[in-house]
């Protein structure tokens, strides 16, 4: 063991880093961006779920509970009519609504009160605060009428999902899409980088091939791989993990194919900015991780701080994730306007990235 030889290796490594500005940026800038984003997402998320209240009780108990709910910091309440409730859940303007029935005060006399809680149900993270706020309101009620025991028996219904619906069901739908997007992106960027670095792209450019033919060939090839991968992932998710799926499998494939096209073209476009495979891998923390954090896979976009919501709104993955959840959790198909919007936006991103990718093909050779 020679200290000098060890030192030579260490020194050589550090000298290399000094000239590789991009790796330095990755090492020292990317962690701050990712951690900063995560901190802002978790601490800054001030938007509490929107809950509608319909107090049908003419007695005192209903108004006491409604007032207590209104003061809760866990939820944002508004007075609604129960007949509008389900449509407000569907259009996403409410996460839940609570109905205090007309015999609510009598129920309190008889010892068991049963408020009706209608949850949207697709976001397990939202259910907790709503039920917790209700519980706190009822404890407050009990403390105002001491002596007599009151049992709480909230009647919970869910628009989507159902009772066995859990966190995995919520994340699973999004992750099925993410896995395809991420892996197709990685194999495309590496494959296209090889095409550039091994000199074959130059040969293709010196042949009668047109750029659109190269792009289309790549897209079809990787989309086929992505769809085969989707079959495997979906069979595993549905048969082994038993992830909730209310939608049509072919609609899922349609969205996955669209995501694969976006991923392929993003890979071709970004491959232009990398000279080695090592540099290509560096795009993962910079281009993929922020998208994963902001696309609503983990933190619902609606609960993000306002500033980050604008950022989420311009990321293709946000729409793809939302679309996948609509299909698998809510059973959406292409007649739903929300799914038309999501797939439409992803398609526009695909077209923009095809144009950008084609443009980079020209720039490198001219």
């Amino acid at each position, binding site marked *: 063991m020679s200290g000098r030889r060890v030192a030579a290796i260490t020194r050589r490594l550090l000298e290399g880093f000094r000239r590789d500005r991009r790796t330095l940026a990755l090492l020292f800038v990317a962690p701050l961006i990712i951690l900063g984003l995560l901190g802002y997402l978790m601490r800054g998320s001030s938007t509490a779920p929107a809950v509608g209240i319909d107090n049908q009780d003419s007695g005192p108990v209903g108004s006491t509970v409604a007032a207590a709910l209104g003061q809760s910091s866990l939820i944002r309440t508004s007075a609604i009519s129960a007949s509008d409730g389900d449509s407000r859940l569907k259009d996403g303007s409410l996460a839940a609504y609570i109905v205090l029935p007309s015999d609510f005060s009598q129920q309190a006399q008889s010892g068991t009160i049963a408020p009706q809680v209608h949850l949207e149900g697709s976001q397990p993270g939202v259910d907790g605060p709503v039920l917790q706020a209700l519980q706190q309101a009822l404890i407050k009620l009990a403390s105002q009428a001491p002596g007599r025991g009151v049992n709480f028996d909230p009647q919970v219904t869910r628009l989507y999902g159902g009772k066995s619906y859990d966190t995995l069901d919520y994340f699973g739908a999004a992750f099925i899409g993410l896995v395809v997007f991420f892996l197709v992106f990685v194999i495309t960027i590496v494959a296209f980088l090889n095409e550039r670095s*091994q*000199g074959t792209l130059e*040969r293709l*450019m*010196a042949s*009668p091939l*047109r750029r659109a033919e190269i792009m289309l060939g790549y897209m079809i090839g990787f989309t086929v791989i992505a769809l085969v991968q989707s079959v495997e992932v979906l069979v595993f998710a549905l048969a082994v993990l038993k992830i909730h799926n209310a939608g049509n499998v072919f609609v899922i494939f349609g969205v996955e194919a669209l995501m694969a096209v976006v991923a392929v073209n993003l890979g071709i476009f970004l491959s232009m900015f990398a000279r080695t495979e090592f540099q290509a891998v560096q795009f993962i923390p910079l281009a993929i991780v922020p998208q994963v954090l902001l696309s609503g896979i983990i933190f619902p976009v609606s609960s993000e701080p306002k500033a980050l919501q604008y950022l989420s709104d311009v990321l293709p993955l946000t729409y793809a994730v939302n679309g996948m959840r609509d299909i698998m959790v809510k059973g959406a198909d292409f007649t739903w306007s929300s799914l038309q919007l999501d797939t439409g936006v992803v398609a526009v991103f695909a077209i923009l990235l095809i144009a950008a990718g084609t443009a980079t093909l020209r720039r490198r*050779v001219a």
Partner: protein
Amino acid sequence: MSDQAYAVDVEAVSKSFGSFKALNGATLRVRKGEIYGLLGPNGAGKTTLIRLIVGLLRAQAGTVTVLGQHMPNVSILRRVGYMTQQAALYPTLSVEENVRFFAAINGAAKGVDDAIDLVQLDEKRKAVVSTLSGGMRQRCSLACALVHHPDLLLLDEPTVGIDPQLRVQFWDDFRRMAEGGTTLIVSSHVMDEADRCQRLGLIQYGRMIEEGTPAEIRSKAGTHNLEEAFLKLAGRGEA
């Protein structure tokens, strides 16, 4: 049409990369069916000139005409073959798969077997390229460049890094193709190869400093040795 006598007609082209003038008014005329040797030191502009001829670059000044068509022109590339300096191949495909791919993108369905035979890789046709030696890769690369029977074949330093035996074999192949009517432009900085060309162009600092048959070049420089002739003519160009 007088320019139809030339397979390649490059008139006073200039091309700069930033502040570096790779080509500075270079002119090159290659007759049909000849082997033309493009000679010059590294960085003289040989590769830039070849990339202009295949339309990978656009000249800032001057014109490039290939087989009667102004470049860049995608459709004429069907009749052009291009072998890059490095053996540009797909390493995970076999020899046959590589050649078949380049045949297909050039619109040639047949010719794969002939091309593999010509470069004598028949025994290795099923071998994956990443397992081949450097010389075999170079041969496979040549097969990919000529599989569609191009009228014009551009070879950028095809004999760099290959052993003398294979080099002799390559030049035999080139001569046979020229006899079959193919025009070849071969760039090199190895002077002893230059004697095998019908005509030579000496390029330096982005300009054509001398053109002619090997014998003409020798007599102009007044030496018997091409290497000396080149150094003498290049020295004159520098002055």
